[in-house]
């Protein structure tokens, strides 16, 4: 038998829940970034928002907050191409598209497609490839729209639990889906996935939700429970505390990556597929940590 108090609590929760859906406030993402390039250059920002061959961007627009990560495929280095150029240019182009309002908040795949098209419009013959993950918060509708191509991805954490996550897209082991521009003649031999192949998703979001967008350097080295542990330490939606948490996550992942005895998610997956390996996976790590808060100009 329900007591009056518990009944009252249920009613209150229902009413408040109903109220929050007709909430007229605009939301925003307070985002901090941190990362480490693979070659021990701790957090040195090469061109701004670049960590090794990874790149990321954070952009604000009147109607949306957009962020993204891109993981440059390192194999190009063997052919004399700098892998960071493609990912960095892709992310900068996405940022510019958002700033100049050449996007629709409900279609992050559109941002990716436009950015890829713009890369081809550059006089400079760009080469390389990268994964891409883009997260868009539509302020008014309180919805997040995402698209993910490859093995970067995002987590949405609410009340200490993961409520949404992206799926990895791989062709085969250690070969993610990727956008690429190849030299002429070898186009057949180079993996080139079109932006339309990205996974899209949309979902509602609440104040206080945490969104973690990162490249595979994080997810391959830190399992969910460790990430959630770090996120528990995040108490408010202050930029400084978010920055601190992002940094601690990235640092921990960076340390684990070089631990030869640690059974990382990457090693676990390899063992499951018959490869007897142990230890972390040294890789570029990029972490974008966001909290959903109210929009202030």
């Amino acid at each position, binding site marked *: 038998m329900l007591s009056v108090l518990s009944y009252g609590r249920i009613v209150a929760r229902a009413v408040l829940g109903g109220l929050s859906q007709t909430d007229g406030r605009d939301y925003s993402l307070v985002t901090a970034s941190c990362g480490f390039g693979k070659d021990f250059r701790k957090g040195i920002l090469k061109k701004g928002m670049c960590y090794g061959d990874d790149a990321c961007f954070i952009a604000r627009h009147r109607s949306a907050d957009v962020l993204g990560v891109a993981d440059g495929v390192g194999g190009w280095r063997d052919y004399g191409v700098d892998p960071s150029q493609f990912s960095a240019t892709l992310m900068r182009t996405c940022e510019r598209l958002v700033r100049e309002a050449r996007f629709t908040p409900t279609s992050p795949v559109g941002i990716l497609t436009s950015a890829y098209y713009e890369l081809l*419009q*550059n*006089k*400079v013959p760009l080469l390389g490839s990268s994964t891409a993950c883009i997260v868009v918060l539509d302020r008014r509708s309180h919805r997040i729209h995402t698209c993910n191509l490859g093995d970067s991805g995002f987590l949405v954490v609410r009340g200490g639990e993961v409520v949404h996550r992206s799926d990895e897209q791989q062709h085969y082991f250690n070969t993610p889906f990727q956008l690429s521009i190849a*030299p*002429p003649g070898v186009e057949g031999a180079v993996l080139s996935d079109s932006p339309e192949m990205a996974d899209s998703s949309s979902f509602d979001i609440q104040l206080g939700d945490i969104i973690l967008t990162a490249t595979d350097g994080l997810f391959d080295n830190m399992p969910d429970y460790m990430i959630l542990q770090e996120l528990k330490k995040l108490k408010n939606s202050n930029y400084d505390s978010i920055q601190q948490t992002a940094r601690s996550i990235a640092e921990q992942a960076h340390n684990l990556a070089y631990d030869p005895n640690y059974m990382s998610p990457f090693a676990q997956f390899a063992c499951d597929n018959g490869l007897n390996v142990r230890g972390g996976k040294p890789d570029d790590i990029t972490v974008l940590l966001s909290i959903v808060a109210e929009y202030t100009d």
Partner: protein
Amino acid sequence: MFYYICLRRRCRSGSRGEALGSRRAVELGQRAALPVTVEVEQYAKEVLDFSSHYGSENSMSYTMWNLAGVPNVYPSSGDFTQTAVFRTYGRWWEQCASATAPFRRTPRSFHSRDYLELAFEEPVYPTAVEVLETYHPGAIVRILACSLNPFSQNLPVDIRWEVLWADEPTKAPSPHARQFSPTIRPINFSTNLLRLEVNSSVLEYYTEMDAVILRGVRERPILALYKMPIIDMSDLSDSEEELSESGALCCRPAARHNLGNGYFDKLPYELIQLIVSHLTVPDLCRLAQTCKLLQQHCYDPLQYVQLSLQPYWPRLGDAALAHLQPRCTLLQRINMSWTGNRGAVTTTGFCSFIRACGTSLVCLKLSCCHFLNEASLEVVAQTCAGLRELDLSSCDRLHPQAFSHIAKLARLHRLVLYRTKIEQTAMLSILTFCTELRHLNLGSCVMLEDYDVVVSMLSVRCRGLLSLDLWRCRNVSERGVAELVAGCSLLEELDLGWCSSLHSSTGCFQLLARGLPRLRKLFLTANRTVCDADLEQLSASCPGLEHLDILGTRMVSPAALRKLLRSCPRLRLLDVSFCSQIDTRTMQELTSLYPAISIKKSFTQ
């Protein structure tokens, strides 16, 4: 003493005097309690109109829309995607056979080749205009301000354009970024619509701009401190009266003092006609007011066989067209590019002018004429049966349906449809009937769905084609090229810039070179597949090559380039920008070996 110094300063400072003067007034007149004028600084809010640009129609790379907002690149110098770039530079396009003959009577002060119009948020009385140029600066030749507020709902009856600054095209000493801030004239209306006109014919490469800043004051500057502009003889504000003066103007007697007119009237008619033929159109109208004899000469239709109204675009309206009508019965070539926008010329006025004067028309230039609609093109098609040359470039507001009427102009030799919205069916219809086409420009025609079909039709119907511009034609393939080569073997100029669907591995470029021995101009801009084998075929088969653009390919080596330069003695323009194998050392070596060739190598840093 202090006051005297301020007065002197004010006189010397000229057109900046108004801004300085207002500050002086504040200093002077603390007792007089003059209002403090606040200078407002604005970046452009929106790019409203422009005559051309380098980039693609749905892109933000090298397009005019980059001029809005804050600068992205400045103060860095270089060839960046975030800047605004026009389609052409230098004199290269004028030197081609596909260039149209210049119009006589172009006033010497009119240098503009391209323009762009910018809207700002708030109308101000301008005190300064600053242009942040990031690459090969120096192209701006005129800055004008408009009295219309483009964001207001109502369209005022009189729209005035005032020249804030004008000069000849100059080349800045270095190709690096600079802030261009000319001294502008004060005007007596507030403006938030600026127009920049450019001419890059003396520049070495594409000029690029990042942002435009408008500085001005909200309140009208005090008249006493306001310097009246010098009346310029070529000042447009006079010309409207002249152009609209009808024959009702009574003549003045030849001479009050009865000195005679120096036997001027004894000269043969043709000689006076010859003398008068050197006057510009406004001067012609002014001269007509002096006496009956000169009026007869100045209104003689033989003076109006060629008419360029482009330099007078701010003043040309329906009334002026109506008054020109009786004189233009023998009109053969008319340039109305840039005229009539914002309601100055209506389709009724234009149609009546064409009906009256268009029967012997041979050349009609209507670039950027946004007043055009389907009805006007229909009238043109019906009246100007002998039309040889039609220029509709950048008429991007023209409805696709309008182009179908062009098919009636069966004698067309030259057709420019750059940046128009022509569709596939209209294009094919034109190609079916206009079999005498010699020069065709389909650059940036984004609504054409299948270029291979268009090119195929071209090769069947227009075998006399001399020049073809397919700039940014996104889906022309090797099949189209093969048919073009088979059908239009007389082709001398071919622009396939940014046609990404062409791949050298199909052999299309080699086929092109073999099949078009008369080739003088070939643009393969940003085709990343151009390789040594293609250059070698060009060296072997196209000795008459004069202009070549192979920007952005990684597959061309210095050796192949040297061979090409040896084999093509007439080469004058070679663009090897962003060709990764061609380094600066090779560039310098080739430049010194072949001083007659302009070898272009652009840079981003």
